[in-house]
């Protein structure tokens, strides 16, 4: 059996996915990117091989994506994360019309066509507003983990008003809210609202094509997903492990490329 690998080297985390010739994910892994993209890619790929229980030689083609994609010597090909998220989401939820991917450094809204082709996309500008980094900075200020942020916000009785989308300014707003003893849950809900509003502006720019699928680390935050669903008025599809959608898309590209002849 031949296997195909996808590696997504992001700003915060690196994911690797291995798929077979059939229809299944054989194994995957998520590691921190840290200071060296090549090392992170090697580590993630090694762990994915272990999870799949296969030998390196069984993987015949590898595609790399994400910011560090050019620093993956293992890879036979590089593809942008925009194309990968589109293909990955389409594979998981075949009738996806729009993908909202909120990653560590970037958020993007992608309009997807048949067979996972990118029809249109938009990304955040040169600013951390509306990205995973925004929530990461706030989580560390509030001493909660990123995972807790979603759960806590769902239990908020009220909501703090965060007026700024700028990460630096919002952080100082959080400082003053903490000083006023506003409950943590309410601040977090306000933060989730701020990021949702920012990304919603991008969704409107591309146009709303349902069904909508969310990917990237922030899709694990149920608070953000719920607020986004409120905006949309419809449920959003989220894969059990939304962080690996980009790497999965890369693996699908690898399989496609391999079939079309190397």
């Amino acid at each position: 059996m031949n296997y195909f690998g996808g590696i997504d080297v992001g700003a915060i985390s690196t994911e690797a996915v291995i798929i077979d010739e059939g229809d299944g994910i054989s194994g995957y892994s998520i590691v921190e990117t840290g200071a060296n993209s090549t090392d992170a890619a090697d580590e993630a790929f090694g762990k994915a091989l272990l999870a799949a229980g296969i030998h390196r030689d069984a993987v015949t083609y590898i595609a790399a994506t994400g910011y560090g994609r050019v620093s993956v010597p293992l890879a036979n090909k590089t593809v942008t994360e925009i194309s990968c998220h589109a293909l990955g989401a389409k594979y998981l939820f075949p009738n996806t019309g729009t993908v909202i991917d909120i990653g560590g450094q970037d958020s993007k809204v992608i309009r997807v066509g048949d067979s996972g082709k990118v029809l249109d996309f938009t990304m955040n500008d040169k600013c951390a507003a509306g990205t995973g980094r925004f929530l990461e900075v706030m989580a560390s200020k509030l001493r909660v983990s990123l995972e807790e942020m979603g759960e806590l916000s769902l239990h908020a009785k009220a909501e703090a008003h965060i007026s700024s989308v700028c990460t630096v300014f919002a952080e100082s707003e959080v400082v003053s809210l903490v000083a006023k003893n506003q409950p943590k849950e309410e601040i977090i809900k306000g933060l989730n609202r701020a990021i949702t509003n920012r990304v919603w502006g991008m969704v409107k720019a591309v146009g709303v094509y349902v069904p909508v699928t969310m990917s990237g680390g922030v899709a694990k935050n149920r608070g953000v997903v719920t607020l986004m669903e409120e905006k949309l008025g419809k449920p959003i599809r989220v894969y059990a492990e939304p962080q690996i959608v980009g790497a999965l898309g890369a693996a699908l590209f690898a399989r496609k490329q391999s079939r079309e002849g190397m």
Partner: protein
Amino acid sequence: MKDMGVPGIMRFSRMGKKRRPRKKNASLGPPLECNSRLRELMATHYLLSRYAQGAKPVAWVTSGAPVEILRPFGFYTFYPENHGALCGAQKMGPELCAEAEEHGYHQDLCSYARIDLGHYFSGKTPVGRLPKPDLLFASNNICQTVVYWYKALAEYWKIPLILFDTPYNFREISKADISYMVRQLEEMIPLLEQISKRRFRYKRFREIVGIAKEASLTWGEVLSTMKARPSPMTIFDAFTHLAPIVSLRGLPAALEHYRALLAELEKRVAQGVGAIKNERWRLMWDNIAIWYKMRDFANLFAERGMNFVTATYTNAWTETIGYLDETKPFESMAKAYSLVILNNNLDHRLQLMERLIQEFQVDGLVIHSARSCKPYSVGQYDLKRLITERLEIPTVVIEADITDSRAYSEEQAMVRLEAFFETLEG
């Protein structure tokens, strides 16, 4: 050597120095023969401008102002926006912008304005020295920023500012709008006579309007040669050859230049010579050039067999000029100058872009969202969505600035462009 003037454009400053040979990009076709002609023309223009001071009245003019009215009075005209583009191409943008910022001008202000004000405070320029103006001449048909930028210059230098106010065209231009603009042009004449100490000569004025119209129409023909497959030049060539129609409009030199360029391009088309060797995809550019990335982008796209064959920006200097009419110079100028792309509604822009896409057989659209130029950048996301839906061609927005490279992030721009390439190549 610097005293010879225009060291930057004439490359005098490099004389005697060993030049690192620039690696020729194998994807590009032969360079235009008219490039050296252009360099000489613009270098002469900048060089002469230094000697104009004292010999002739000097006016600093915005790119969209009806300069034809100044010409009968013998004004030597200088274009800060063209100078800004030159500074941008020479990668001096951040340095000059910082000079203006140190004097309190905000980073969000247009970088052409900041470069110009930066020059005022520091005297820095790649062309040796700029002529001090006797008059400032601005029109708000391109933006409102020029009004305040030129007001600042007028205050610093204690010189007069003449403003040509063009009502925005929401749907249709009215008779009242036209007569409002004609009145302004008429009222300028006694002022211009006073400043230049010359009498207005109506016959000469009409001739100048005729020359300006002819040059703009020839520029239009130059751009039309790019409809050919393969296109004989790239938009990056056109961005450079735009300088005469901006800075020398109404002067015979601009017309002569475009006649020479047109002849060369027609010859190329007849011989099937393309600006890039393997033209597989044809693209359109929206907004002003990213001056400091011209060479990089020319290479990047050529290597992928992609050629920019049209741009709303280069088209702007030929789009409305057909309205010019020597027999009714004032009325026709009012119309030609108030209906320019940046003073016209978004519906108009959408129709224009759709027409250019069809006429030039465009496969994809690259939109530059320029931090400097708000009037050009507003509405781009709506235009993008509508064009994607209606014409089903791939589009991409890259966020950058015309000359201030601090507002450009290479990594982010490349991700967007690569995703665009993937979509285009299917």
